[in-house]
């Protein structure tokens, strides 16, 4: 029995135990314990992260003569680490006080834990897939498992979940069509056969396959123009569930794109294919889809007034950075893209958890109904602060390092517009995350929140651990770049040479250990200067300049609504909902088509069609 078998077995055990023990009050802790066991098993497989041998699963079977097998390489290990890590953070957060409150409100924390565990198992299977058929099976498992997590809350969540599954099914159909073409071409679903045949494929075949898979897998990432489902579907999930979904779920799309398009079909082919009547190659087209997926969702996030939706929209935008970096095809860009998967998971989970902490105490995530909580929940504030610095990609947090790698490769490879597009995304993110922390934690504390206290330890510890990871991997990015380097090798890409502090190169280096130390030295100087001044007196928040009036507690003195009025005056008209229009027109096309089909079936000979369908399927299975 290999380590991989053990890992999958423990994961299966987690699913079974959480599924059977719905009524047990301490089920959350059991799930946390079992996820910890999964993490430890994965760490025992840690050699993979440093260029170790591929680990095969000892089981495997065949369907219709096609073998199915599972194995872990460095790339799978890297993604699995992020999956289990974010699941563990969410599960631990939900295990204690949060779960008790959730139960009191009529929720079922056991079901939440079960869904997280099920998602982890599905993802681990997908990440381990050793051929296209098992990849597809894993893909479908992940799709349906995440639907379960999305609709747990009921009510509007089911509506958004339904919307998701329509998108996901469309994606799956595209993937299936792609697989059918590959099977036609190679006669097997093995990775090696596709990789062997790929260089000989003609342009039309490459374009068709690339677009089918990019569409199919890209839907999961929320790439434009298929981004509408994601933020709503993620944001409605109960607290820790959003953290898990936001951290890793849509990255499964990236993993599949990596394996099928970048590794098997090969980026070099995509660069060679020119799109007629444009200056773009097929690769450039995909990069622009990624760039637009950075900008538009980021600016949609800027306009949200609900903390969870704001973060969920940013999740889509950050996915664009990963893809754009990986498509550059130099060691810096691909390392940046892969590292951003890890970094994004850490700060996004921390951010969602801190928003969940705020909801736990205040019962709302409406950014116009909060404010001033920093004096009541300082630790949650700290977590959110570290998280937003990471999300915005500012030193010293880890988000900066991965974005730096992406920027640098775009500069050196000479892609000015893509570079500017990704920086515009970052700037928009800074505006939006400041609004998040300002409207939640800064400004005036509302009267009804006077009595609030910090959340209990069972919730603060997972948040603080995540924040610590965000900082430490920003301070010493080499820790993650080791794993990223091995994943690059597994993908057949050039490996990034790196140091513990970053990279060294004649074309521009980065040493985060120095940069962070100097930054903190600077803060020390600033503090020295500040505290050398006369001692300051703390005043009450109502002791404030109000143009000659006296402030009282019933006066709302917090600027939160329409926060960037000047900017919205200018770009507000750009949000005209053309994508909503696109979606609704697609819906009407599909519904009229299906209506037509139904009419045809009902009014003519239903029995005949049934017979035809049966004959065809019999032919398929027997013939």
């Amino acid at each position, binding site marked *: 029995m290999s380590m991989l078998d053990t890992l999958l077995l423990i994961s299966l055990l987690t699913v079974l135990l959480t599924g059977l023990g719905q009524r047990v009050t301490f089920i959350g802790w059991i799930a946390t314990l079992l996820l910890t066991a999964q993490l430890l098993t994965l760490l025992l497989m840690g050699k993979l992260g440093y260029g170790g041998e591929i680990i095969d699963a000892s089981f495997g079977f065949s369907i219709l003569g096609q073998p199915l097998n599972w194995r872990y390489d460095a790339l799978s290990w890297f993604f699995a680490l992020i999956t289990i890590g974010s699941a563990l953070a969410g599960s631990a957060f939900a295990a204690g006080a949060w779960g008790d409150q959730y139960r009191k409100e009529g929720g079922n924390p056991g079901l939440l834990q079960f869904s997280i565990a099920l998602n982890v198992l599905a993802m681990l299977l997908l990440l381990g897939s050793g051929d296209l058929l098992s990849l597809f099976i894993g893909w479908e498992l992940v799709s349906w498992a995440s639907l379960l997590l999305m609709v747990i809350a009921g009510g509007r969540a089911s509506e958004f979940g339904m919307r998701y599954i329509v998108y996901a099914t469309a994606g799956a159909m595209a993937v299936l069509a792609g697989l059918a073409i590959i099977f036609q071409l190679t006669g097997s679903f093995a990775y090696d056969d596709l990789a062997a045949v790929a260089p000989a494929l003609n342009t039309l075949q490459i374009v068709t396959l690339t677009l089918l898979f990019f569409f199919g897998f890209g839907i999961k990432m929320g790439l434009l123009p298929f981004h509408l489902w994601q933020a709503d579907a993620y944001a409605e999930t109960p607290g820790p569930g959003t953290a898990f979904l936001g951290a890793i779920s849509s990255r499964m799309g990236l993993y599949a794109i990596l394996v099928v398009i970048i590794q098997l079909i090969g980026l070099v082919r995509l660069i060679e294919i020119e799109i007629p009547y444009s200056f773009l190659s097929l690769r450039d087209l995909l990069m622009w889809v990624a760039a637009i997926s950075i900008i538009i969702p980021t600016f949609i996030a800027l306009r949200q007034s609900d903390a969870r939706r704001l973060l969920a929209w940013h999740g889509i935008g950050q996915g664009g950075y990963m893809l754009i970096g990986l498509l550059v095809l130099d060691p810096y860009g691909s390392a940046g893209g892969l590292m951003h998967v890890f970094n994004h998971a850490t700060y996004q989970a921390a951010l969602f958890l801190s928003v969940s902490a705020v909801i736990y105490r205040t019962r709302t995530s409406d950014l116009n109904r909060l404010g001033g909580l920093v*004096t009541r929940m300082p630790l949650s504030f700290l977590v959110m602060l570290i998280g937003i610095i990471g999300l915005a990609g500012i030193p010293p947090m880890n988000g900066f390092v991965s974005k730096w790698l992406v920027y640098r490769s775009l500069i050196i490879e000479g892609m000015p517009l893509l570079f500017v597009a990704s920086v515009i995304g970052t700037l928009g993110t800074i505006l939006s995350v400041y609004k998040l922390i300002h409207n939640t934690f800064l400004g005036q504390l509302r009267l009804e929140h006077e009595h609030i206290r910090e959340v209990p330890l069972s919730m603060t510890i997972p948040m603080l651990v995540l924040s610590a990871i965000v900082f430490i991997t920003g301070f010493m990015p080499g820790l993650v770049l080791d794993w990223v380097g091995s994943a690059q090798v597994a993908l057949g890409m050039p490996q990034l040479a790196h140091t513990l502090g970053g990279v060294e190169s004649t074309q*521009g280096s980065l040493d985060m250990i120095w940069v962070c130390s100097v930054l903190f030295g600077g803060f020390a100087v600033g503090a020295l200067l500040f505290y050398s001044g006369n001692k300051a007196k703390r005043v009450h928040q109502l002791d404030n300049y109000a143009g000659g009036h006296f402030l009282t507690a019933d006066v709302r003195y*917090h600027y939160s609504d329409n926060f960037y009025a000047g*900017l919205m005056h*200018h770009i507000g008209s750009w949000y005209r909902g053309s994508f909503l229009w696109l979606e609704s027109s697609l819906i009407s096309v599909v519904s009229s088509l299906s209506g037509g089909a139904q009419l045809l079936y009902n009014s003519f000979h239903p029995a005949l069609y049934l017979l035809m369908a049966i004959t065809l399927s019999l032919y398929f299975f027997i013939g």
Partner: protein
Amino acid sequence: MANSILLTILEVILMPLVAFIVGLFMVLMMRKLAAKLQRRVGPPLFQPLYDIVKLYGKQTQISHGLIHDIGIIMAVGGYVAAEALLPVPGMDGIAAKGGLVTLAYLMMVPSLGLALGVGQCANPNGSIGISRALTAMLAYDIPFIIVIFGVAYHFGSTNLVSIIATQQAEGIAGWGISEMPILAIAGLFALHASLGKQPFEIYIAPAEIATGPMVEMGGKFLGGLFVMQTFQLYTASVLYVSLFLGGGENWVTFLIKCFAVLAIPVLIAYLFPRYRTEDLIRLVWKWPVMLALLGVAFVMN
């Protein structure tokens, strides 16, 4: 090895100190120029220093909470750190370990610190000011980042030390301004907007939002912002000199270049009125962005 680390640490300590002193004189120059244009005498030599000492020593110091304090510390500290990434004659600090992109992002730390500190004050005037300031940052950072791309692509490196060395090796003809004049104009435009001086000082707007971010700042809090301003003037002009004017061969030419670069936006500032936020966005996204893109197109051909 140990020696070079010690030397770097020494430089990292010295560079912000130099920056502070030069920055004080830059503030003085700014005030003197304003006075000349308004036919006044202007302040004496040490006035900027007196102001800082006065503010830090004031009896009344009002704090709205820990984040208010930390915000000011971050605002000053971020710039202190940024100076270590800006090479000056004889000292490179950690410029080679960070580079242009890191510097550009490190320069956002002070803005973030200030924004946090002001947010804690719970004054809508301050928050409106920050909303305007961040919007302005979104406006001017776009041409600025295009300029950075153009320069880095032209010199094939994001390392400021090698960018300066390349320019100095080729003399004036090799300076960024001679090779990329259009980018240099766009850069000057962006630099002016980044300083938040007239006509781009909408986020301070004393008559409308009671000086915006500064509304709850007094004593050492305002003093911290004063120190931040000295660093800001220094950083902006030195960065421009390093990108386009060949950096500093020696301290004399270096300082002349820096003060001359700064004098341009300052002179414009005191001759022009103020733009509204939306007009600022429109102006900055149109002209410098177009210029910068044109400049990049030339660089890449």
